[in-house]
């Protein structure tokens, strides 16, 4: 029972210490809150940029036009051949009739022109709409499809797609760098604030050592105190990011500028970010204080 009683004392001491050193605790909690709020903003931005890019990437399609005289069986064979390529995600057949219908909807002028043709005389070609898994190698996949028999033409927005992929990759890299840099800054800020809190209790640690407290007995309350400070410090940024993001999401109706760019659903992202903030706060808090107190255990 003794170890449990000692542990209970350590946890109780940690709580007492948070309240007794109230102003320093508030300073630590505020510092943790500010840095974690920045981390939360960076995380939300990254998650959304990630979604924009993947949404747009998903929209990139290879349009495979099929030669006019191709039979039903040959069309099926072509599908099977395309599906065999590694990079293929989905493949969808669109008949020239369907294309005619959708084009007719775009403008009256087009509808008039296309209306002159019946099923037999439809000048449009049947198509396969192919979506790829990796947009970066879309060019290679398109080239392979182009070489297949009964393929009249292959279009995927050559040049533009590559450009887009390049830009997205740069944006992602910048976002990751910002998140990592903020993470490092957070580590330093939190651990330094907690160090200042502990430096003020140098005398207490010295006396604890002198009356015969073991190093682990002295360190444990600080470890728990770090957890408490980190946890409390993470609450405000969690509340702010949850409230702020839901507010923004509802205000913008879930889309940014155009319906192509949709925001990540709050249900999906906020729980994950809240847990991440809580873990960062408590783990960094605990280890920063545990590490800081070690300096004073050499008396």
């Amino acid at each position, binding site marked *: 029972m003794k170890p449990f*009683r000692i542990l209970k004392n350590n946890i109780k001491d940690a709580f007492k210490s948070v309240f007794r*050193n109230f102003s320093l605790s508030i300073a630590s909690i505020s510092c943790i809150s500010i840095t974690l709020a920045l981390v939360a903003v960076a995380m939300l931005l990254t998650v959304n940029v990630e979604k924009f890019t993947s949404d747009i990437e998903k929209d990139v399609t290879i349009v495979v036009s099929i030669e006019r005289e191709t039979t039903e069986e040959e069309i099926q064979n072509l599908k099977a051949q395309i599906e065999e390529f590694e990079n293929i995600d989905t493949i969808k057949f669109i008949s020239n009739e369907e294309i005619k219908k959708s084009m007719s909807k775009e403008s009256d002028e087009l509808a008039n022109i296309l209306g002159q043709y019946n099923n037999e005389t439809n000048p449009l070609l049947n198509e396969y709409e192919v979506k790829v898994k990796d947009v970066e190698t879309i060019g290679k996949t398109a080239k392979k499809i182009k070489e297949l028999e009964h393929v009249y033409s292959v279009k995927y927005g050559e040049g533009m797609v590559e450009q887009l992929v390049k830009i997205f990759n740069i944006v992602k890299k910048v976002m990751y760098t910002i998140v990592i840099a903020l993470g490092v800054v957070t580590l330093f800020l939190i651990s330094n604030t907690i160090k200042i809190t502990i430096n003020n209790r140098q*005398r*207490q640690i010295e*006396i604890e050592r002198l*009356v*015969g407290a*073991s*190093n682990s*007995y002295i360190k444990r309350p600080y470890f728990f105190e770090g957890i408490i400070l980190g946890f409390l410090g993470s609450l405000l940024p969690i509340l702010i990011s949850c409230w702020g993001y839901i507010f923004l999401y509802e205000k913008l109706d879930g889309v940014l500028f155009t319906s192509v760019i949709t925001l990540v659903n709050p249900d999906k992202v906020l729980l994950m970010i809240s847990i991440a903030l809580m873990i960062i706060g408590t783990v960094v808090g605990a280890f920063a204080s545990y590490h800081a107190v070690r300096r004073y255990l050499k008396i």
Partner: protein
Amino acid sequence: MNLIEVNNVYKQYKNGITALSDINLSIAKGDFVFIIGQTASGKSTLIKLLYRQEKPTKGEVYVGGINVAKLRNSKVYKIRRKIGVVYQDYKLLPNMTVFENVAFALEIFGLKRSEIRERTMQALEVVGLKDKFRSMPDKLSGGEQQRVSIARAIVNNPRILICDEPTGNLDPKTSLEIMEIIDKINKDGTTVIMATHDKDIVNKYQKRVVTLEKGILVKDTPKGGYTK
């Protein structure tokens, strides 16, 4: 083996000052020893070696059979639990009550609340501060703060009580009150080692006196007074 054995101990600080030279000293269980000397004679260094706040440069320091000179930092607590230390500056925690300051020395053992309460109040009774257990240290006089420090030192029933100039900051009347308490603790069986340069106290109590001069043990009198 005696309770405390100091054999051929030298202490030289990093700045080159030699604080102790070839010190040999034996203290038996139940002894009361005054360690006297001028400022910078090495009294405090000798005392600090006993509770391992300092390590000797050379030599052995046995306390209760353990060579504290060889004790690792992480194991120092083992020896400190056997020793009660009273400091000139009391070393009380200002944000804890009198009770908490004393009880702290027991909490580290993981004792039951009721036992901690009982033993803390007993220690406070010995020093005559039972009725001030709720006070904060800054509300107490110097003498009262030193009594709290003594209560904390003895609450764990240590075999040895080390006092480093315990009356250094107190007026003569309060000093004598403190000495009465320390003397009683010694009479109850605890070995007391006390560094002081208070002539009146040393002369009044007529205990064993070890005299240091410039880091050298120059005299060891079984029942002496304060002599140069």
